[in-house]
C-alpha cells in the first residue's frame, strides 16, 4: 500500500537527478560514439533507465522502506547485468557442446516416442477388454463372457508380446547406432590425438634446432 507523500525527501530528488543526468549522458554517448552495437553498453543504459523508473515509487513509501527498496533495486540491477554477461559467455562457450549432443538427444527422443506409441497400443487393448467385460456382465451370459474374456486376454497377450518385440528390436538397433556414433567419436579423437602429437613433436624439434643454432 502506498500513501501519498507528505514530504518529498531531498536525498531522493538528488539521487533521481543524478540518475537522470547519467541516463542523458549515456544516451548522448550512445548517439555520439555509435556504440549501440555493443550489447554491454546498451545493457548498462537500459539498466540505468530501469533503476530510474523503479525508484520513482520510492517517493511514496516510508523512509526506511524506501532506502531499503532503493538499495535492493540497485543491487538487483547490478546482479542482473553480471549474470547476463556470465550467461552470454557461458552460452557462447557451450554452443559447440550443444551441437554435439543434439544428435544423441534426437535418437533418445525417437526411441521415447516409439515406446509411447507401443504403450498407447497396449492401453487401447486393455480398454477394449474393459468394454467387453462390461458388455459381458450386462449380457449375464457367463459362458459367452468367459470365452470372450479368454480370447481378449490372448489377444492382449499377443499384442503385448508383439509390442515388446518391436520395442526391444528398436532399442537394440538404436543402441547399436549410438555405439557406432561413440566409436566414430573415439576414432576421431584418436586421429586428433595423433595430429596433436605429431604437430607438437615437429614444432618442438624445429624450436630446439632454432634455439641451438
Amino acid at each position, binding site marked *: 500500500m502506498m500513501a501519498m507523500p507528505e514530504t518529498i525527501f531531498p536525498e531522493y530528488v538528488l539521487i533521481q537527478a543524478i540518475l537522470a543526468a547519467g541516463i542523458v549522458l549515456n544516451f548522448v554517448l550512445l548517439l555520439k560514439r555509435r556504440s549501440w552495437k555493443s550489447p554491454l553498453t546498451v545493457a548498462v543504459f537500459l539498466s540505468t533507465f530501469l533503476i530510474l523508473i523503479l525508484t520513482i515509487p520510492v517517493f511514496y513509501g516510508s523512509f526506511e522502506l524506501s532506502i531499503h527498496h532503493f538499495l535492493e533495486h540497485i543491487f538487483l540491477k547490478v546482479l542482473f547485468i553480471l549474470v547476463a554477461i556470465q550467461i552470454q559467455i557461458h552460452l557462447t562457450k557451450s554452443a559447440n557442446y550443444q551441437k554435439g549432443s543434439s544428435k544423441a538427444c534426437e535418437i533418445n527422443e525417437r526411441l521415447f516416442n516409439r515406446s509411447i506409441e507401443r504403450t498407447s497400443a497396449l492401453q487401447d487393448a486393455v480398454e477394449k477388454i474393459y468394454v467387453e467385460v462390461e458388455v459381458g456382465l450386462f449380457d449375464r451370459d457367463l459362458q459367452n463372457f468367459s470365452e470372450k474374456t479368454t480370447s481378449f486376454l490372448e489377444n492382449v497377450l499377443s499384442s503385448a508380446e508383439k509390442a515388446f518385440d518391436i520395442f526391444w528390436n528398436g532399442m537394440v538397433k538404436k543402441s547399436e547406432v549410438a555405439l557406432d556414433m561413440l566409436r566414430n567419436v573415439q576414432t576421431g*579423437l584418436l586421429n586428433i590425438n595423433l595430429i596433436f602429437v605429431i604437430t*607438437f613433436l615437429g614444432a*618442438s624439434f624445429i*624450436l630446439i634446432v*632454432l*634455439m641451438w643454432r
Partner: protein
Amino acid sequence: MLPLSVYMMFNVLLFVIGVYSCVSKRNLIRIIIGVDILTSAVNLNFIVFSTFRTPGLIDPAGHSFVIMLIALEGGVVAVLLSLVVFLYRHYGTLDIYDLVKLKR
C-alpha cells in the same frame, strides 16, 4: 602403443630443454623459444594423459585443455614478441645482460 613411461620421459626431456634455454640463453628470442618448448611439453603431457586415463577410450577434457592452451600460448608469444620489438627499438640490443647493465 608405447607405454606411458616413454611418453613421460620424452615430455620431461622437452621440459628440461625448455627450462635450460630459459635459464642459460642470453638472447631474448631464444628465451621465448624456450617458453614455447615448455608449453609444448605441457600440451603433450595433457594429450598423453587423456589417452592413458581410461583404457580403450580417449578423454576429451585433455583435448579441450590443449586447444585452450594453444590459444593462450599464441597470445603469450605475441605479447612477448611485441615486448622484444619495443626493447630492441629502445635499447638497440636483445642481450639480457646488456639490458640489465643499461638501467634506463
